[in-house]
């Protein structure tokens, strides 16, 4: 079996070699299901980067290289994530930009590690991803270990010292809420109550009543917008005066829609890794993206774009498209991307990743400065 594959590869190599070398780059994100809009956005970021690189013409080790996108759908499901990872490995990709969710990225990273393929996640923010000791795993977004403290710093300095923390018992919500709680305690604030719900719940009256009895200044919810919206409503229904703060799971127009008239200016905030779109160093990106895909940038496409070009940059520097060869170059890379300077620390995390705080204002999330 292996032999035929080698033969096939030789055949392919033999024919293409004359003109140019085709290098496949994988992308994995949920393209169907509830998060399809975000997944599509991520994949389009990779697509735009590859088209740009091909248009410019990239030469690696003296050979002209044509990049090709292999897009897969992981449905934001860990089990599908590993299956998709295997498929990308089968397809012979030289790098993977993905996955989008932490839950799928962590089990998938193990497969890429075994296959020796470089993986850069544009958006998985769970700290454990880069703590597994995998050489080949990177990300271009600040992780929750940074977002939690940033949110805590904002809460303590601007909103108040008494903080109630709620999480939705999902990998994302719990991870972020734990980091937030730690940072609040370290920053001299008090956590009045730590409450829990689920990522399928709609009734939060009981836990909010408990939160209210301790009279906090801020309620922090680690979770997603389908719960965040109704929670904002119930905060109002119980006559709670505390400010409401969420992580990036709440930084969506969806949350504003679901919270309806319960969300008030100056009382709802959220934090998100990265620079706000209006403040991207490269202002052209948004317009070019819109022109190419006839769709607005949702969230992660600039990061996916940067991750792709960073890998290509590393290939150029190392003069090889083989992951084992360009990995050292990637570790030392300094790539000027549309979201800022991309460079990695020893774990593969982005150095100096920015976190932006947004406030609800005039019907949308406005970045605070």
């Amino acid at each position, binding site marked *: 079996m292996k032999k035929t594959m080698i033969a096939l590869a030789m055949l392919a190599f033999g024919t293409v070699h004359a003109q140019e070398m085709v290098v496949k780059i994988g992308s994995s994100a949920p393209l169907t299901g509830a998060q399809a809009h975000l997944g599509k956005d991520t994949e389009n970021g990779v697509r735009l980067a590859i088209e740009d690189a091909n248009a410019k013409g990239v030469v690696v080790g003296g050979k002209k290289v044509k990049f090709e996108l292999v897009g897969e759908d992981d449905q934001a499901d860990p089990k599908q994530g590993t299956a998709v990872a295997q498929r990308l490995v089968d397809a012979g990709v030289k790098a993977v930009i993905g996955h989008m969710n932490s839950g799928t990225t962590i*089990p998938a990273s193990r497969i890429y590690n075994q296959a020796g393929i470089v993986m850069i996640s544009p958006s998985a923010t769970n700290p454990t991803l880069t703590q597994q000791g995998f050489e080949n795993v990177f990300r271009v977004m600040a992780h929750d270990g940074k977002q939690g403290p940033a949110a805590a710093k904002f809460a303590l300095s601007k909103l108040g010292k008494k903080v109630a923390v709620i999480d939705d018992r999902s*990998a994302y919500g719990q991870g972020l809420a734990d980091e937030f709680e730690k940072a609040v305690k370290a920053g001299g604030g008090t956590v009045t109550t730590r409450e829990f719900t689920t990522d399928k719940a709609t009734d939060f009256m009981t836990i909010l009543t408990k939160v209210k009895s301790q009279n906090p200044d801020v309620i922090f919810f680690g979770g997603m917008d389908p719960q965040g919206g109704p929670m904002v409503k119930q905060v109002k229904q119980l006559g709670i005066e505390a400010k409401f703060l969420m992580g990036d799971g709440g930084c969506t127009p969806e949350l504003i829609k679901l919270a309806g008239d319960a969300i008030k200016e100056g009382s709802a905030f959220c934090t998100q890794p990265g620079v706000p779109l209006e403040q991207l160093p490269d202002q052209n990106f948004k317009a070019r993206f819109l022109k190419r895909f006839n769709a607005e940038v949702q969230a992660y496409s600039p990061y996916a774009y940067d991750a792709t070009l960073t890998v290509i940059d590393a290939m150029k520097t190392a003069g090889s498209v083989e992951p084992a060869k360009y990995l050292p170059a990637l570790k030392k890379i300094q790539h000027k991307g549309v979201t800022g300077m991309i460079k990695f620390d020893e774990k593969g995390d982005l150095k100096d990743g920015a976190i932006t705080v947004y406030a609800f204002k005039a019907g949308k999330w406005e970045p605070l400065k």
Partner: protein
Amino acid sequence: MDELVRIVPYFGTHNPKVARAIVLALILVAPILALGIGPAWVRILDFALLYVMLAVGLNLVVGFAGLLDLGYIAFYAVGAYTWAFLASPHFGVHLPFWIVLPLGAGFAALAGVILGFPVLRLRGDYLAIVTLGFGEIVRIFMNNLNHPINITNGPQGINMLDSLHIFGWDVSRRIVITDSFSINSLLLYYYVFLAFVTLSVILVQRLQVSRIGRAWAAIRDDDLAAKAVGINVRNCKLLAFAMGATFGGVAGGLFGAFQGFVSPESFSLMESIIVLAMVVFGGMGNIGGVIIGALLLSWLPEVLRSYAVPMQTALFGQVLLDPEILRMLVYALALIFMMLLRPSGLMPAHSRYSRPDLVLANKRVGP
């Protein structure tokens, strides 16, 4: 085995020996054929074998003993978490598989008995709903036992689980014979899983025709009558729960080793229902049918994934039905139509002690 042999076209009825050889050869060659399409398909086969094991175990409870268990995945979870506790850096314990797997099976059996005791008196629908609750309770505990003491690492799950080492040989590493020829680890897992599945199937087959198996059939068909002829209904039911759970536990351990990562969301109610659909689809009480049901229902969604999306894009220019939705549709329709049209499943049972079709049709069993 005989049931599988019988479905081979032509030879199945004309020349069982040839049919047997065909089935055996197919089982052995399947992963190599799948590798031809791509290792991803071997991975799917590996998962299919795990599902076969689960389905065989659930079949023992539902098909043989007639106890509808909607929380079966809890035992799978117990097995997987046992592997995670005893063979991962989480507690820094790395025990070999021949300790962990039996322990996982044992814990699962214990869980089965714990579940079984209070629900012995319940029947039918009450039993179903309480077992469903049990499954949820197990999942909720796994999701929350990271506080005040971190036992399960909560929703983050446990990562970096040890792979299967069989006497020093790591199954997850490819065997390199020469530089250009090596055997993919997915293939190795296939044969390891196949060995476990074969063992379980033989065990279950022997059980079915044993004294215990006959007692289960009697309880399923009429438990008062069973009691009247001197069967210890309580012990038999407990045994069914425990034995069924054992298979779940072993499969869970293998899953943990294979996937290398366990988290509570892998053990949702949906998974219990998927396994139930496999059992029902193939034919309750019929081992061959259940195997076919599990294989079909774990392959079909993947086939749908690979072909339905490109086909829809080609036909309509967009994806109208998510593969995930198609998958749910398949499971839902399998449950409904099998019960309405073929209550005995794809392959009706032939064995004397496994005729749930007759029971379901409310006919008299036997002469």
